[in-house]
């Protein structure tokens, strides 16, 4: 064998050894490493982070596919285009493709570069982040903005902390928050949610107002909302919004996959929904809104956030009790922002980011309580 004589190009001592992180990443992507156990248990489970991460991506696929169709549908409806299902889907697919490409290329280049600098293997976390980001931004967001947001989030939220597993905030959400605060005109309002960039090249169209159900309900209450979209419209997802967030059904399919495989915590999902419902109900009986509380679940990014973002195992609470508290507060805070905030009607993003910040504190309290209880138990025993 050649490698017995002298080191290969990319092996230790070889000329291009400095590129080993990158080469390893591609190599192990294609083939499971031949590494054998050196310490500890001699046999290991077949699971690895690549598998865990790909499960999340698979769970996101229904939401992404429906989102693509819905991009076409909303454009077709808004501009009176006579499109069939495949027109709509292809339009959405082609609109979304550049977003995915930019998100993955920018994110992975930084990820690979950072791994090179650290001399570690490239981590799989960005597989998920890169897929999430295009699903939670308006489809017409300029690509350079997206690239900037991705770069900011990967560098300052992930890599400076040491990469996947070390970050405090969900990188995908920070990318969205970055866009939201830096370029509010491209991220909010009623004219950003329906794709018109390509349509306007074909046809002379003005920016058409297509407000999201959240915005309609915020301004006009339940009557204004139901005159435009029925509850079932929102449940199926035939409404304007970020690509991935609109269809409850598609998100629930994803949730099923995540819970079944155990990748995401069902406790966080359930408690977040409970928190949202409770505050929604309080808001309704307290007169802050006339929306029935369950409407909170089908509007905006609530469910998408509860299922895919709040459950990120790195940034969520780590203890099982902590997960209940964390999830509940995510849901509750999101609806608090929706109901009692005059300017900004979607609270999910900030609720999750805030609770990401608080998660270590929740865990600290849970763990301390547990330690005290244990000490007491032993004393009385």
């Amino acid at each position, binding site marked *: 064998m050649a490698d017995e004589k002298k080191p290969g190009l990319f092996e230790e001592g070889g000329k291009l050894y400095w590129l080993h992180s990158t080469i390893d990443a591609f190599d192990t992507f294609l083939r499971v490493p031949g590494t054998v156990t050196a310490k500890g248990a001699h046999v290991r489970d077949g699971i690895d*982070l690549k598998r865990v991460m790909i499960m999340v991506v698979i769970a996101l696929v229904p939401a992404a596919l429906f989102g693509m169709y819905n991009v076409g549908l909303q454009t077709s409806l808004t501009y009176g285009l006579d499109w069939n299902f495949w027109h709509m889907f292809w339009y959405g697919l082609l609109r979304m493709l550049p977003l995915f490409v930019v998100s993955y290329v920018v994110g992975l280049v930084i990820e690979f570069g950072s791994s090179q600098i650290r001399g570690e293997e490239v981590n799989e976390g960005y597989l998920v982040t890169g897929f999430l980001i295009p699903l939670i931004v308006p489809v017409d967001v300029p690509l350079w903005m997206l690239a900037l947001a991705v770069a900011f989030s990967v560098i300052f939220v992930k890599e400076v902390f040491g990469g996947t597993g070390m970050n405090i905030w969900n990188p995908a959400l920070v990318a969205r928050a970055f866009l939201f605060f830096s370029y509010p005109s491209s991220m909010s309002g009623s004219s950003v949610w329906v794709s018109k960039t390509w349509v306007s090249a074909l046809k002379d169209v003005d920016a058409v107002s297509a407000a999201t159900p959240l915005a309609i309900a915020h301004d006009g209450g339940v009557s204004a909302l139901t005159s435009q979209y029925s509850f079932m419209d929102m449940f199926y997802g035939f409404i304007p919004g970020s690509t991935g967030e609109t269809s409850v059904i598609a998100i629930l399919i994803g949730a099923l996959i995540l819970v079944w495989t155990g990748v995401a915590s069902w406790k966080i999902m359930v408690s977040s929904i409970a928190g949202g419902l409770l505050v929604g109900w309080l808001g309704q009986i307290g007169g802050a809104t006339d929306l029935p509380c369950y409407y909170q679940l089908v509007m905006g990014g609530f469910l998408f956030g509860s299922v895919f973002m709040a459950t990120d195992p790195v940034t969520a609470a780590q203890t099982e009790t902590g997960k209940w508290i964390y999830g509940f507060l995510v849901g509750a805070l999101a609806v608090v922002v929706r109901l009692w905030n005059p300017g900004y009607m979607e609270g999910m993003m900030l609720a999750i980011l805030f609770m990401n910040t608080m998660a270590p504190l929740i865990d600290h309290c849970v763990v301390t309580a547990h330690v005290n209880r244990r000490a007491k138990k032993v004393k009385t025993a």
Partner: protein
Amino acid sequence: MSNHLDLKKGLDIPVKGVAAREVAKTVKPGTIAVKPTDFKGFLPRLLVKEGDRVLAGSPVMADKQNPRILVTSPVSGTVSGIVRGEKRKLLAVLVQADAGQTYADFGTKVPADADAVKDLLLKTGLWNALIQRPYGIQADPDLKPKAIFVSTFSTAPLAADTEFTLGDRLADIQAGVNALGKLTDGGVHLAVNKAVYSSSPFHKVENVIAHEVSGKHPAGNVGVQISHIAPIQKGETVWTMPVLMVAALGHVINTGKLDLTRKVAVTGPVATHPAYVVALPGTPVKEITDIPADARVIGGDVLTGENLGADGCLGFFQDQVTLLHEGTEREWFGWAKPFRPKVHSSSWCYFSWLTPGKKYDMDTNLHGGPRAFVETKCFEDVTPMDIFPIYLIKACLAGDIEKMEKFGIYEVLPEDLALCDYVDPSKNDIQAIIQKGIDLMIKEMA
């Protein structure tokens, strides 16, 4: 009247190659290795030189810090070699066994009090079989433990079936337990496998506090049992002794002879004939079983065993040899395949859950690369103890003594968290991390 302990968490690893309940052969002792490395914390001082005659039970080494603690020869014969490693570290004393065995006589008087028991344990070298918790170190002869724990069964993958290996040695076990009971006021706690309780010979053992334990691995681990029965707090010590050694102690009391002969389970996917072999500790593995080329030879089970190598010798505590294929092959798109029928995963990200009874040809492949911790619940699911494994692990990594104490370092040994090694998608060596934490505790708290 016994107590019940039903553990819900845990995992039985479905590896192929369980030993058939039959004795395939009896190894006649040839050259036996006495290894000081079998005993954690034992600093050897040689008591013999090449050419010396020893009896079965004669001292071969003494501990430098506590010369009363001896390691004795399991056979009678002639010292034929001293094996040293780097920096002249003593690795083994080789004894060429005689054709017929002669035993040192320890007398058949039943030890009357704690001092007599200690004396007997120290003289026979069986003191080393007592393990002190916290930390899993050599027991201190000057201490009186809170209690002594013995687990009569192992739930580790393919572990020797104690009912088969020790079921006929009830009288020895009873005598051993009686003696151990004199060392503590807290009594001897004996854990018996609930699944086979009524048929198990061990429920007949008297003068013990019996516990019927059920659950998946690590339910049979004495550490897990202690943490539920009498959790160890700062300043407390408990002692444990493997049931195999309790039988050896009883045998000394009943016959006056130290006989460490045991039925060794030869197991694992590449074992040509998985069955039991009667052998002494220190027997070269080659004499115990055929070893296929490129096999990893493990003394013990796949989770906590020692990599002995093809030329290694069975350890003092070991009653199992596991043979595994070295998994250096690289599987194309392993992680991306929808189905991987040859690889087991306890995670539902694969489809192993569809075939719950299936046993796997496991090998030593890591199935991934090392990463930062991402998953958290997988550790809790396999740790049936009242601790937060991930916090304990992180405290050990950080070397934070105060937090390690709070999170339960006194209650665990690496073997109790061995399943975390197995299930971790980030492929960290949890046992090594815990051991490092324990070593730091020993150093700092001394």
